[in-house]
Protein backbone atom coordinates (compact mmCIF):
# COMPACT_ATOMS: atom_id res chain seq x y z
CA UNK A 1 0.00 0.00 0.00
CA UNK A 2 2.78 2.38 0.97
CA UNK A 3 4.65 1.63 -2.20
CA UNK A 4 1.54 2.34 -4.15
CA UNK A 5 1.13 5.73 -2.44
CA UNK A 6 4.69 6.78 -3.22
CA UNK A 7 4.33 5.62 -6.81
CA UNK A 8 1.07 7.47 -7.46
CA UNK A 9 2.26 10.65 -5.75
CA UNK A 10 5.51 10.65 -7.71
CA UNK A 11 3.72 10.03 -10.98
CA UNK A 12 1.31 12.88 -10.36
CA UNK A 13 4.13 15.31 -9.53
CA UNK A 14 6.05 14.20 -12.63
CA UNK A 15 2.94 14.66 -14.77
CA UNK A 16 2.50 18.17 -13.38
CA UNK A 17 6.13 19.10 -13.99
CA UNK A 18 6.03 17.63 -17.51
CA UNK A 19 2.90 19.59 -18.40
CA UNK A 20 4.47 22.74 -17.00
CA UNK A 21 7.65 22.16 -19.01
CA UNK A 22 5.91 21.26 -22.27
CA UNK A 23 3.08 23.80 -22.33
CA UNK A 24 5.32 26.85 -22.98
CA UNK A 25 7.39 24.90 -25.51
CA UNK A 26 4.26 23.92 -27.39
CA UNK A 27 3.21 27.56 -27.35
CA UNK A 28 0.10 26.95 -25.24
CA UNK A 29 1.09 29.48 -22.58
CA UNK A 30 3.64 32.27 -22.47
CA UNK A 31 6.76 31.25 -20.54
CA UNK A 32 7.03 34.84 -19.33
CA UNK A 33 4.01 34.18 -17.10
CA UNK A 34 4.60 30.61 -16.05
CA UNK A 35 8.32 29.96 -16.49
CA UNK A 36 9.40 26.30 -16.72
CA UNK A 37 10.85 23.77 -14.28
CA UNK A 38 14.15 23.59 -16.22
CA UNK A 39 14.54 27.36 -16.13
CA UNK A 40 13.74 27.57 -12.43
CA UNK A 41 16.41 24.98 -11.69
CA UNK A 42 19.05 26.70 -13.84
CA UNK A 43 18.23 30.07 -12.25
CA UNK A 44 18.28 28.52 -8.80
CA UNK A 45 21.81 27.22 -9.28
CA UNK A 46 22.92 30.68 -10.42
CA UNK A 47 21.26 32.40 -7.45
CA UNK A 48 22.75 30.06 -4.87
CA UNK A 49 26.25 30.95 -6.02
CA UNK A 50 25.83 34.68 -5.35
CA UNK A 51 26.84 36.40 -2.11
CA UNK A 52 23.61 38.34 -2.07
CA UNK A 53 21.67 35.11 -1.72
CA UNK A 54 23.50 34.22 1.48
CA UNK A 55 22.84 37.68 2.83
CA UNK A 56 19.10 37.47 2.07
CA UNK A 57 18.79 34.05 3.63
CA UNK A 58 20.72 35.26 6.67
CA UNK A 59 18.45 38.31 7.11
CA UNK A 60 15.22 36.33 6.75
CA UNK A 61 16.36 33.47 8.95
CA UNK A 62 17.53 35.74 11.76
CA UNK A 63 14.28 37.75 11.68
CA UNK A 64 12.36 34.51 11.89
CA UNK A 65 14.56 32.97 14.59
CA UNK A 66 14.48 36.01 16.89
CA UNK A 67 10.74 36.57 16.52
CA UNK A 68 9.94 32.90 16.99
CA UNK A 69 12.22 32.50 20.00
CA UNK A 70 10.54 35.51 21.63
CA UNK A 71 7.13 34.05 20.84
CA UNK A 72 8.02 30.77 22.58
CA UNK A 73 9.79 32.51 25.46
CA UNK A 74 6.81 34.74 26.23
CA UNK A 75 3.89 32.74 24.84
CA UNK A 76 4.48 29.48 26.72
CA UNK A 77 4.96 30.88 30.27
CA UNK A 78 2.14 33.39 29.85
CA UNK A 79 -0.16 30.69 28.46
CA UNK A 80 0.62 28.36 31.37
CA UNK A 81 -0.07 31.18 33.83
CA UNK A 82 -3.36 32.08 32.19
CA UNK A 83 -4.38 28.43 32.21
CA UNK A 84 -3.62 28.22 35.90
CA UNK A 85 -5.32 31.39 37.18
CA UNK A 86 -8.91 31.90 36.11
CA UNK A 87 -9.16 35.59 37.05
CA UNK A 88 -6.14 36.45 34.93
CA UNK A 89 -7.60 34.44 32.10
CA UNK A 90 -11.00 36.13 32.16
CA UNK A 91 -9.23 39.48 32.18
CA UNK A 92 -6.84 38.81 29.29
CA UNK A 93 -8.79 36.28 27.26
CA UNK A 94 -11.06 38.74 25.37
CA UNK A 95 -8.26 40.90 23.93
CA UNK A 96 -6.19 37.80 23.10
CA UNK A 97 -9.14 36.19 21.32
CA UNK A 98 -9.78 39.42 19.44
CA UNK A 99 -6.23 39.34 18.08
CA UNK A 100 -6.52 35.60 17.41
CA UNK A 101 -9.67 36.16 15.34
CA UNK A 102 -8.12 39.04 13.41
CA UNK A 103 -6.00 38.45 10.35
CA UNK A 104 -2.87 39.45 12.28
CA UNK A 105 -1.05 40.62 9.15
CA UNK A 106 -3.46 43.57 9.08
CA UNK A 107 -1.23 44.92 11.86
CA UNK A 108 1.69 45.12 9.45
CA UNK A 109 1.29 48.78 8.43
CA UNK A 110 1.08 50.02 12.01
CA UNK A 111 4.05 47.89 13.05
CA UNK A 112 6.03 49.51 10.24
CA UNK A 113 5.02 52.95 11.53
CA UNK A 114 6.21 51.98 15.01
CA UNK A 115 9.37 50.05 14.21
CA UNK A 116 10.45 51.17 10.77
CA UNK A 117 11.24 49.19 7.66
CA UNK A 118 14.27 47.35 9.06
CA UNK A 119 14.53 43.97 10.71
CA UNK A 120 12.76 44.98 13.93
CA UNK A 121 9.36 45.24 12.27
CA UNK A 122 9.66 41.72 10.78
CA UNK A 123 10.72 40.31 14.13
CA UNK A 124 7.59 41.89 15.60
CA UNK A 125 5.33 40.47 12.88
CA UNK A 126 6.73 36.96 13.40
CA UNK A 127 6.30 37.40 17.15
CA UNK A 128 2.66 38.53 16.93
CA UNK A 129 1.77 35.79 14.48
CA UNK A 130 3.44 32.95 16.36
CA UNK A 131 2.88 34.01 19.99
CA UNK A 132 -0.92 33.93 19.86
CA UNK A 133 -1.44 30.26 18.86
CA UNK A 134 1.39 29.23 21.21
CA UNK A 135 -0.23 31.11 24.09
CA UNK A 136 -3.74 29.87 23.36
CA UNK A 137 -2.67 26.24 23.08
CA UNK A 138 -0.48 26.37 26.20
CA UNK A 139 -3.49 27.75 28.04
CA UNK A 140 -5.73 25.00 26.66
CA UNK A 141 -3.10 22.42 27.61
CA UNK A 142 -3.17 23.44 31.26
CA UNK A 143 -6.94 23.48 31.34
CA UNK A 144 -7.07 20.01 29.82
CA UNK A 145 -4.93 18.36 32.50
CA UNK A 146 -6.68 15.36 34.02
CA UNK A 147 -8.22 16.53 37.32
CA UNK A 148 -7.68 13.21 39.04
CA UNK A 149 -3.91 13.60 38.60
CA UNK A 150 -4.03 16.93 40.38
CA UNK A 151 -6.14 15.50 43.16
CA UNK A 152 -3.78 12.56 43.51
CA UNK A 153 -0.72 14.82 43.63
CA UNK A 154 -2.37 17.09 46.18
CA UNK A 155 -3.53 14.26 48.38
CA UNK A 156 0.08 13.09 48.55
CA UNK A 157 0.86 16.58 49.86
CA UNK A 158 2.60 17.93 46.76
CA UNK A 159 3.37 21.63 47.03
CA UNK A 160 1.85 23.97 44.45
CA UNK A 161 5.27 24.32 42.84
CA UNK A 162 5.68 20.57 42.57
CA UNK A 163 2.19 20.19 41.14
CA UNK A 164 3.03 22.72 38.49
CA UNK A 165 6.46 21.36 37.56
CA UNK A 166 5.73 17.65 37.83
CA UNK A 167 2.12 17.35 36.75
CA UNK A 168 0.75 20.38 34.95
CA UNK A 169 3.76 21.23 32.80
CA UNK A 170 4.53 17.73 31.48
CA UNK A 171 0.84 17.00 30.90
CA UNK A 172 0.31 20.15 28.87
CA UNK A 173 3.47 19.71 26.80
CA UNK A 174 1.81 18.02 23.80
CA UNK A 175 -0.60 20.92 23.51
CA UNK A 176 2.26 23.42 23.83
CA UNK A 177 4.08 21.70 20.96
CA UNK A 178 0.92 21.78 18.86
CA UNK A 179 0.78 25.55 19.44
CA UNK A 180 4.41 25.85 18.39
CA UNK A 181 3.68 23.98 15.17
CA UNK A 182 0.70 26.22 14.40
CA UNK A 183 2.77 29.28 15.23
CA UNK A 184 5.54 28.12 12.94
CA UNK A 185 3.61 28.45 9.70
CA UNK A 186 2.19 31.80 10.78
CA UNK A 187 5.72 32.94 11.57
CA UNK A 188 7.06 31.91 8.16
CA UNK A 189 4.16 33.67 6.48
CA UNK A 190 4.87 36.74 8.63
CA UNK A 191 8.51 37.01 7.56
CA UNK A 192 7.67 36.69 3.89
CA UNK A 193 4.71 39.07 3.92
CA UNK A 194 6.57 41.57 6.11
CA UNK A 195 9.54 41.59 3.78
CA UNK A 196 7.34 41.79 0.72
CA UNK A 197 5.49 44.75 2.18
CA UNK A 198 8.41 46.97 3.21
CA UNK A 199 12.02 45.93 3.58
CA UNK A 200 15.59 46.41 2.48
CA UNK A 201 16.71 42.80 2.16
CA UNK A 202 15.55 39.24 2.64
CA UNK A 203 13.82 36.51 0.69
CA UNK A 204 10.44 38.29 0.66
CA UNK A 205 12.14 41.43 -0.62
CA UNK A 206 13.52 39.44 -3.55
CA UNK A 207 10.17 37.84 -4.27
CA UNK A 208 8.56 41.26 -4.54
CA UNK A 209 11.37 42.70 -6.63
CA UNK A 210 11.55 39.85 -9.14
CA UNK A 211 7.78 39.81 -9.28
CA UNK A 212 7.62 43.44 -10.32
CA UNK A 213 10.40 42.82 -12.85
CA UNK A 214 8.44 39.91 -14.36
CA UNK A 215 11.36 37.56 -13.74
CA UNK A 216 9.17 34.59 -13.03
CA UNK A 217 11.97 32.02 -12.84
CA UNK A 218 13.80 33.97 -10.11
CA UNK A 219 10.54 34.53 -8.28
CA UNK A 220 9.55 30.87 -8.36
CA UNK A 221 12.94 29.75 -7.10
CA UNK A 222 12.48 31.87 -3.97
CA UNK A 223 8.90 30.70 -3.58
CA UNK A 224 10.01 27.08 -3.62
CA UNK A 225 12.85 27.84 -1.23
CA UNK A 226 10.48 29.32 1.36
CA UNK A 227 7.99 26.50 0.89
CA UNK A 228 10.71 23.93 1.42
CA UNK A 229 11.75 25.70 4.61
CA UNK A 230 8.17 25.86 5.89
CA UNK A 231 7.59 22.23 5.02
CA UNK A 232 10.81 20.98 6.64
CA UNK A 233 10.26 23.00 9.81
CA UNK A 234 6.63 21.88 10.15
CA UNK A 235 7.55 18.23 9.54
CA UNK A 236 10.29 18.24 12.17
CA UNK A 237 7.98 19.74 14.80
CA UNK A 238 5.34 17.19 13.84
CA UNK A 239 7.86 14.38 14.31
CA UNK A 240 8.72 15.77 17.74
CA UNK A 241 5.01 15.98 18.52
CA UNK A 242 4.39 12.34 17.62
CA UNK A 243 7.33 11.27 19.76
CA UNK A 244 5.92 13.20 22.72
CA UNK A 245 2.47 11.69 22.27
CA UNK A 246 3.86 8.18 22.24
CA UNK A 247 5.98 8.77 25.35
CA UNK A 248 3.01 10.42 27.06
CA UNK A 249 0.97 7.25 26.58
Amino acid sequence: MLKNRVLVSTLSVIAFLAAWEIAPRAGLVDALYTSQPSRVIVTGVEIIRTREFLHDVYVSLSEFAIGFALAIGIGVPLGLLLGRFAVLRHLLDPPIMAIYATPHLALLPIIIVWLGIGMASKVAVVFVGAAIPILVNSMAGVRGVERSWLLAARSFCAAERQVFLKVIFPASLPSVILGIRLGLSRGVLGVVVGEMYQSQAGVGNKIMRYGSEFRTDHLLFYVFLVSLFGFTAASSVRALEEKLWTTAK
Partner: protein
Amino acid sequence: MDNGKMKGTKPVLLGIASFAAILLVWETMVRLGWVSPFFTSQPSAVALSLSRAARSGELWHNFAVSLREFAIGYGASVVVGILAGALAGRFRIVEYALDPFLWFLYSAPLIAFYPIFVLWFGLGAPTVIAITFLFSVTQIAVNTLRGIQNVDRRLLRAARSFGATERDLLWKVILPASVPMVVAGLRLGVGRALMGVVVGELFGATAGLGHSISYYGALLKTTDMIASLVVVIVVGVLCTQGLSAVEARFDSWRT
Protein backbone atom coordinates in the same frame (compact mmCIF):
# COMPACT_ATOMS: atom_id res chain seq x y z
CA MET B 1 -8.44 21.62 36.02
CA ASP B 2 -10.75 24.55 35.92
CA ASN B 3 -11.69 24.44 39.54
CA GLY B 4 -14.05 27.08 40.79
CA LYS B 5 -15.73 27.74 37.45
CA MET B 6 -16.79 31.34 37.67
CA LYS B 7 -20.48 31.66 38.04
CA GLY B 8 -22.77 33.73 35.86
CA THR B 9 -21.71 37.08 34.55
CA LYS B 10 -18.38 37.51 36.25
CA PRO B 11 -16.20 36.42 33.28
CA VAL B 12 -18.17 38.69 30.96
CA LEU B 13 -17.77 41.63 33.33
CA LEU B 14 -14.04 41.01 33.63
CA GLY B 15 -13.77 40.85 29.85
CA ILE B 16 -15.60 44.15 29.41
CA ALA B 17 -13.48 45.65 32.19
CA SER B 18 -10.30 44.62 30.42
CA PHE B 19 -11.37 46.27 27.15
CA ALA B 20 -12.45 49.40 29.01
CA ALA B 21 -9.10 49.48 30.84
CA ILE B 22 -7.17 49.20 27.58
CA LEU B 23 -9.11 52.09 26.03
CA LEU B 24 -8.77 54.20 29.19
CA VAL B 25 -5.01 53.66 29.52
CA TRP B 26 -4.53 54.34 25.82
CA GLU B 27 -6.51 57.60 25.95
CA THR B 28 -4.86 58.89 29.15
CA MET B 29 -1.32 58.07 27.99
CA VAL B 30 -1.87 60.21 24.92
CA ARG B 31 -3.68 63.00 26.84
CA LEU B 32 -0.86 63.17 29.39
CA GLY B 33 1.65 63.39 26.59
CA TRP B 34 3.44 60.17 27.50
CA VAL B 35 3.17 58.80 24.00
CA SER B 36 2.82 60.71 20.77
CA PRO B 37 -0.60 60.49 19.07
CA PHE B 38 1.35 60.33 15.82
CA PHE B 39 2.29 56.74 16.67
CA THR B 40 -0.68 55.47 18.61
CA SER B 41 -3.53 57.89 17.91
CA GLN B 42 -6.23 57.79 20.61
CA PRO B 43 -9.60 56.08 21.03
CA SER B 44 -11.61 59.30 20.85
CA ALA B 45 -9.94 60.31 17.57
CA VAL B 46 -10.42 56.81 16.15
CA ALA B 47 -14.12 56.92 17.04
CA LEU B 48 -14.45 60.30 15.29
CA SER B 49 -12.66 58.98 12.22
CA LEU B 50 -14.94 55.93 12.14
CA SER B 51 -18.12 57.99 12.32
CA ARG B 52 -16.83 60.32 9.62
CA ALA B 53 -15.96 57.36 7.35
CA ALA B 54 -19.38 55.86 8.02
CA ARG B 55 -21.21 59.07 7.12
CA SER B 56 -19.18 59.76 3.99
CA GLY B 57 -19.90 56.25 2.74
CA GLU B 58 -16.20 55.41 2.46
CA LEU B 59 -16.49 52.73 5.13
CA TRP B 60 -19.41 50.98 3.45
CA HIS B 61 -17.73 51.11 0.07
CA ASN B 62 -14.53 49.52 1.39
CA PHE B 63 -16.54 47.00 3.35
CA ALA B 64 -18.59 46.05 0.29
CA VAL B 65 -15.49 45.62 -1.87
CA SER B 66 -13.82 43.37 0.69
CA LEU B 67 -17.01 41.42 1.29
CA ARG B 68 -17.45 40.74 -2.42
CA GLU B 69 -13.86 39.51 -2.78
CA PHE B 70 -14.28 37.36 0.29
CA ALA B 71 -17.60 35.91 -0.90
CA ILE B 72 -16.31 34.93 -4.35
CA GLY B 73 -12.94 33.59 -3.18
CA TYR B 74 -14.32 31.73 -0.20
CA GLY B 75 -17.35 30.47 -2.15
CA ALA B 76 -15.12 29.00 -4.83
CA SER B 77 -12.85 27.39 -2.26
CA VAL B 78 -15.84 25.78 -0.49
CA VAL B 79 -17.03 24.19 -3.75
CA VAL B 80 -13.59 23.10 -4.96
CA GLY B 81 -12.33 22.14 -1.49
CA ILE B 82 -15.29 19.93 -0.59
CA LEU B 83 -15.35 18.34 -4.03
CA ALA B 84 -11.61 17.60 -4.06
CA GLY B 85 -11.67 16.45 -0.44
CA ALA B 86 -14.65 14.17 -1.03
CA LEU B 87 -13.13 12.61 -4.14
CA ALA B 88 -9.83 12.09 -2.36
CA GLY B 89 -11.61 10.61 0.66
CA ARG B 90 -13.61 8.22 -1.48
CA PHE B 91 -10.92 7.13 -3.95
CA ARG B 92 -7.44 6.23 -2.76
CA ILE B 93 -5.80 7.04 -6.06
CA VAL B 94 -7.12 10.61 -6.04
CA GLU B 95 -5.83 11.05 -2.51
CA TYR B 96 -2.36 9.83 -3.43
CA ALA B 97 -2.26 12.00 -6.53
CA LEU B 98 -3.38 15.15 -4.70
CA ASP B 99 -1.33 14.55 -1.58
CA PRO B 100 1.95 16.24 -2.63
CA PHE B 101 0.11 19.30 -3.95
CA LEU B 102 -1.98 19.67 -0.81
CA TRP B 103 1.18 19.42 1.28
CA PHE B 104 2.89 22.02 -0.83
CA LEU B 105 -0.02 24.45 -0.66
CA TYR B 106 -0.33 23.82 3.07
CA SER B 107 3.28 24.68 3.88
CA ALA B 108 3.99 27.31 1.22
CA PRO B 109 3.57 30.96 2.20
CA LEU B 110 0.98 31.38 -0.52
CA ILE B 111 1.23 35.13 -0.54
CA ALA B 112 4.51 34.67 -2.41
CA PHE B 113 2.40 33.91 -5.46
CA TYR B 114 0.97 37.39 -5.29
CA PRO B 115 3.37 38.90 -7.88
CA ILE B 116 2.57 36.07 -10.30
CA PHE B 117 -1.14 36.59 -9.82
CA VAL B 118 -0.70 40.25 -10.59
CA LEU B 119 1.00 39.16 -13.81
CA TRP B 120 -1.85 36.82 -14.63
CA PHE B 121 -4.91 38.70 -13.44
CA GLY B 122 -3.78 42.31 -13.10
CA LEU B 123 -3.91 44.54 -10.06
CA GLY B 124 -7.09 44.63 -8.03
CA ALA B 125 -10.04 42.42 -7.17
CA PRO B 126 -9.26 39.28 -9.28
CA THR B 127 -5.82 38.90 -7.69
CA VAL B 128 -7.25 39.34 -4.20
CA ILE B 129 -9.94 36.75 -4.97
CA ALA B 130 -7.32 34.28 -6.22
CA ILE B 131 -5.26 34.69 -3.05
CA THR B 132 -8.35 34.33 -0.87
CA PHE B 133 -9.22 31.14 -2.72
CA LEU B 134 -5.72 29.66 -2.35
CA PHE B 135 -5.53 30.57 1.34
CA SER B 136 -8.73 28.74 2.25
CA VAL B 137 -9.08 25.88 -0.24
CA THR B 138 -6.42 23.56 1.22
CA GLN B 139 -7.85 23.77 4.73
CA ILE B 140 -11.33 22.85 3.50
CA ALA B 141 -10.08 20.03 1.24
CA VAL B 142 -7.87 18.50 3.95
CA ASN B 143 -10.62 18.61 6.57
CA THR B 144 -13.17 17.07 4.20
CA LEU B 145 -10.70 14.32 3.35
CA ARG B 146 -9.99 13.58 7.02
CA GLY B 147 -13.70 13.71 7.85
CA ILE B 148 -14.54 11.08 5.27
CA GLN B 149 -11.56 8.90 6.11
CA ASN B 150 -12.34 8.95 9.80
CA VAL B 151 -15.90 7.69 9.44
CA ASP B 152 -16.27 4.82 11.87
CA ARG B 153 -15.55 1.55 9.99
CA ARG B 154 -18.11 -0.24 12.15
CA LEU B 155 -20.87 2.09 10.95
CA LEU B 156 -19.98 1.27 7.36
CA ARG B 157 -19.89 -2.44 8.03
CA ALA B 158 -23.17 -2.34 9.88
CA ALA B 159 -24.85 -0.46 7.03
CA ARG B 160 -23.40 -2.86 4.46
CA SER B 161 -24.55 -5.94 6.33
CA PHE B 162 -28.07 -4.55 6.34
CA GLY B 163 -27.85 -4.32 2.56
CA ALA B 164 -27.09 -0.61 2.02
CA THR B 165 -26.05 0.30 -1.50
CA GLU B 166 -23.03 2.50 -2.22
CA ARG B 167 -25.39 5.44 -2.66
CA ASP B 168 -27.08 4.81 0.66
CA LEU B 169 -23.67 4.60 2.27
CA LEU B 170 -22.64 7.96 0.87
CA TRP B 171 -25.84 9.84 1.71
CA LYS B 172 -26.87 8.16 4.93
CA VAL B 173 -23.59 7.25 6.61
CA ILE B 174 -20.50 8.93 5.19
CA LEU B 175 -21.83 12.43 4.65
CA PRO B 176 -23.65 12.85 7.98
CA ALA B 177 -20.75 11.32 9.90
CA SER B 178 -18.19 13.59 8.28
CA VAL B 179 -20.18 16.81 8.69
CA PRO B 180 -18.58 18.00 11.96
CA MET B 181 -15.10 17.71 10.49
CA VAL B 182 -16.16 19.44 7.27
CA VAL B 183 -17.79 22.27 9.22
CA ALA B 184 -14.61 22.69 11.27
CA GLY B 185 -12.73 22.99 7.97
CA LEU B 186 -15.20 25.61 6.77
CA ARG B 187 -14.66 27.61 9.96
CA LEU B 188 -10.87 27.45 9.74
CA GLY B 189 -11.23 28.30 6.07
CA VAL B 190 -13.10 31.50 6.91
CA GLY B 191 -10.20 32.66 9.09
CA ARG B 192 -7.70 31.93 6.37
CA ALA B 193 -9.89 33.54 3.69
CA LEU B 194 -10.15 36.71 5.80
CA MET B 195 -6.38 36.72 6.04
CA GLY B 196 -6.19 36.27 2.27
CA VAL B 197 -8.50 39.23 1.61
CA VAL B 198 -6.63 41.54 3.98
CA VAL B 199 -3.13 40.53 2.85
CA GLY B 200 -4.10 40.61 -0.81
CA GLU B 201 -5.54 44.10 -0.35
CA LEU B 202 -2.53 45.31 1.63
CA PHE B 203 -0.45 44.84 -1.48
CA GLY B 204 -2.19 45.53 -4.67
CA ALA B 205 -5.78 46.62 -4.36
CA THR B 206 -7.50 49.87 -5.18
CA ALA B 207 -10.22 49.61 -2.54
CA GLY B 208 -11.23 47.51 0.46
CA LEU B 209 -10.52 47.44 4.18
CA GLY B 210 -7.00 46.03 3.80
CA HIS B 211 -6.26 48.61 1.15
CA SER B 212 -7.37 51.48 3.37
CA ILE B 213 -5.15 50.22 6.23
CA SER B 214 -2.20 50.15 3.87
CA TYR B 215 -3.13 53.46 2.21
CA TYR B 216 -3.45 55.44 5.44
CA GLY B 217 -0.36 53.69 6.76
CA ALA B 218 1.66 54.94 3.82
CA LEU B 219 0.35 58.46 4.45
CA LEU B 220 1.22 58.05 8.15
CA LYS B 221 -2.39 58.90 9.04
CA THR B 222 -2.38 56.70 12.12
CA THR B 223 -5.92 57.54 13.25
CA ASP B 224 -7.57 56.53 9.98
CA MET B 225 -5.39 53.45 9.76
CA ILE B 226 -6.39 52.29 13.24
CA ALA B 227 -10.05 53.00 12.44
CA SER B 228 -9.89 50.57 9.49
CA LEU B 229 -7.98 48.09 11.63
CA VAL B 230 -10.74 48.22 14.25
CA VAL B 231 -13.32 47.36 11.59
CA VAL B 232 -11.22 44.37 10.47
CA ILE B 233 -10.88 43.17 14.07
CA VAL B 234 -14.63 43.48 14.69
CA VAL B 235 -15.44 41.58 11.48
CA GLY B 236 -12.94 38.86 12.43
CA VAL B 237 -14.37 38.44 15.93
CA LEU B 238 -17.99 38.40 14.69
CA CYS B 239 -17.18 35.76 12.04
CA THR B 240 -15.34 33.51 14.49
CA GLN B 241 -18.00 33.77 17.18
CA GLY B 242 -20.84 33.17 14.74
CA LEU B 243 -19.14 30.16 13.21
CA SER B 244 -18.32 28.62 16.58
CA ALA B 245 -22.05 28.79 17.37
CA VAL B 246 -22.91 27.12 14.06
CA GLU B 247 -20.28 24.47 14.65
CA ALA B 248 -21.57 23.69 18.13
CA ARG B 249 -24.97 22.98 16.61
CA PHE B 250 -23.58 20.57 14.04
CA ASP B 251 -21.46 18.87 16.64
CA SER B 252 -24.42 18.14 18.89
CA TRP B 253 -26.32 16.88 15.87
CA ARG B 254 -23.82 14.06 15.43
CA THR B 255 -24.52 12.37 18.73
